């Protein structure tokens, strides 16, 4: 797999067009790594001039900030910004809405201003520029519902890019009753991913999975590694894992073309 790092390219005196910010989940979580690889396959297929930071990448600080540790957040942010600015990065794409939100909205005041795109937005732009074709393949005609990640949707008003990509897969896109601005959280945001839930009568991811199951999809599509984990757990909890898959849009696009 062709995955150049910024350091390698710099040694060759090259500057890639975009930086792919992999994120912690995309780097370490077994499920999310599949999304990372699928996305890289698409980047390579579309001949995108990109690089990653590799070992020079570090947590954006999102879970620290949302836990209340502003100090740790800003330490992470400024260290990352120093690396990004050293490489004179202009454009960043990421498959994690939390990284996307943090770098896009919270880094500029700390000295890091970049054009930041979520991978669905970037794929959409590749499609519009004719650099990427999307076909349905094995997904043709299947029933898909899209779960809006909070940090992509409400937090940044990105609702259409993922949906346009899904439609290109020649599938039947069915919306959950709560979608777009009314979308229900998967339960992972605000650092909840890393702790047990407070006392209650249900887990948030179960409630959201029930939303999804009520439209009887073949696939629950997401655009966030954390939503992916939560929905996958929810589907397992409902013992539906043999009939319903939870997939990132990038994976679906890559699979459809046998990449």
């Amino acid at each position, binding site marked *: *797999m062709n*995955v150049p*790092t910024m350091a390698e390219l710099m040694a060759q005196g090259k500057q890639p067009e975009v930086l792919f910010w*992999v994120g*912690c989940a995309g*780097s*370490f979580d077994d499920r999310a790594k599949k999304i990372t*690889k699928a996305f890289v396959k698409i980047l390579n297929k579309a001949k995108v001039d990109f690089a*990653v*930071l*590799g*070992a020079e*990448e*570090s*947590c954006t600080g999102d*879970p*620290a900030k*949302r*836990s*209340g*540790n*502003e*100090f*740790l957040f*800003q*330490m992470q942010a*400024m260290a990352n910004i120093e690396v990004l600015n050293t490489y004179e990065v202009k454009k960043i794409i990421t498959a994690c809405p939390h990284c996307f*939100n943090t770098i*896009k*909205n919270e880094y500029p*005041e*700390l000295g890091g201003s970049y054009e930041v795109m979520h991978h669905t937005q970037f794929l959409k732009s590749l499609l519009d520029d004719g650099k990427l074709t999307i076909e349905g393949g094995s997904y043709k005609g299947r029933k898909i519902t899209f779960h809006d990640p*909070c*940090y992509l949707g*409400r*937090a*940044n*008003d990105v609702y259409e890019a993922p949906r346009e990509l899904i439609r290109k897969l020649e599938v039947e896109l069915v919306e959950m009753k709560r979608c777009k601005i*009314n979308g*229900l*959280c998967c*339960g992972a*945001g*605000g*650092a*909840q*991913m*890393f*702790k047990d*839930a*407070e*006392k*209650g*009568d*249900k*887990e*948030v991811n*179960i*409630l*959201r999975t029930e939303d999804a199951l009520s439209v009887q999809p073949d696939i629950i599509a997401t655009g966030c590694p954390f939503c992916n984990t939560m929905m996958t757990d929810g589907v397992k909890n409902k013992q539906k894992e043999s009939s319903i898959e939870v997939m990132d849009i990038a994976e679906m696009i890559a699979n459809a073309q046998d990449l």
Partner: protein
Amino acid sequence: MQYVPNIIFTLLLALGIGFFAKNLKKIKRNIQLGKAIDRKDRSKERWLNMLKIALGQTKLVRRPVSGILHVVVYLGFIIINIEVLEIVLDGVLGTHRLFSFLGGFYGFLIGSFEILALLVLVAVVLFWTRRNVVKIKRFWQKEMTEWPKKDGNIILYFEIVLMSLFLVMNATDVPFQEMQAGNTISQFLAPLFADFSLETNHVIERTAWWLHIAGILIFLNYLYYSKHLHILLAFPNTYFANLNAKGKFENNATVTKEVQTMMDPNADPYAVSENDGAEPEKFGASDVTDLNWVQLMNAYTCTECGRCSSVCPANETGKELSPRAIMMKTRDRLEEVGNNIDANKGVFKDDGKQLLKDYISPEELWACTSCNACVEECPVNIDPLSIIMDMRQYLVMEQSAAPQELNSMMSNIENNGAPWPYNQMDRLNWKDEA
């Protein structure tokens, strides 16, 4: 003697407005107990927001039933106030139906007011039914007991009484009925009073007139003690609301300075900081005075409709957190602090209490997923999430009181740059994995 009613009326009016103005000043003072935050930029967007969201009620009608009923009551409230202007002038000048010189147009005006009054009555009765008979869940959550529950109903009763008085006043105004213009609704009430003498009708009309204007003044003063302040504060609240992407959380400037010094290789670690001597700035919020004034205005603006809590993932899954309760508790504590200041000649005397723990528990704060559903949902752009985040910041940075798992997550980030215990050098391993 003929001026006695005018004088009584003018005194009543001055008293009603004066007392309310005094309380408004208190609210303003309490809001100003909050920290500074600059919300004077982008005034064009702010005006637009206010016009769309407060005046145009665009976010309310996202829920069509309650939204449209609310628009009816709101329009009724605003438009019927033109009639109140006439009533006030009549009262002060001792005239009767001062605007009737407008002739046909006057008939049209009063006729429209009567229709609106009837519509408001219907809407308010439906509101009451939704609260008390249908028992819609968000009106029966645990923060909606006792006073908040009573408050909701009292407001509805006020409106029923005021609208009824307005219609009765018109129905018993015999000369007005004889004009046959503008009595669109009251003409159907007039027969109820037809058996009474002209004199009795006049007495009823005068009584209704006085009760109506007195009721309005009492209602005006009731606002201060009620959740109903939103009818005024919705406007500044939408004007000063956050305009940035909802995902953008404020960066703490004091922390920025500290981190910059730490990361600057040329900084002298032994240098005396400019802050020396002064008390170091407190991180986050443990009491209302640590919040900014917009957050405090939010608390006064909240009308406890509960739309936020009805979409909150934590609340919906039975957790302790309710964004509406966060706003209500913030207001309760702010009023307590305000009363404390008033009782102690303008200086706050430590009462051993604070917003954190005495009002809002850490359990509530830690249940938030920061999903912004509450912020998106609020019909007047209140932001409960920012208060939750400020209080978390206090818990973590001042008290190191994060849940244990979050402490592990944070030490992982500190040590190896990821929330899990993986080596940073392994970040690219996925590249070569099958």
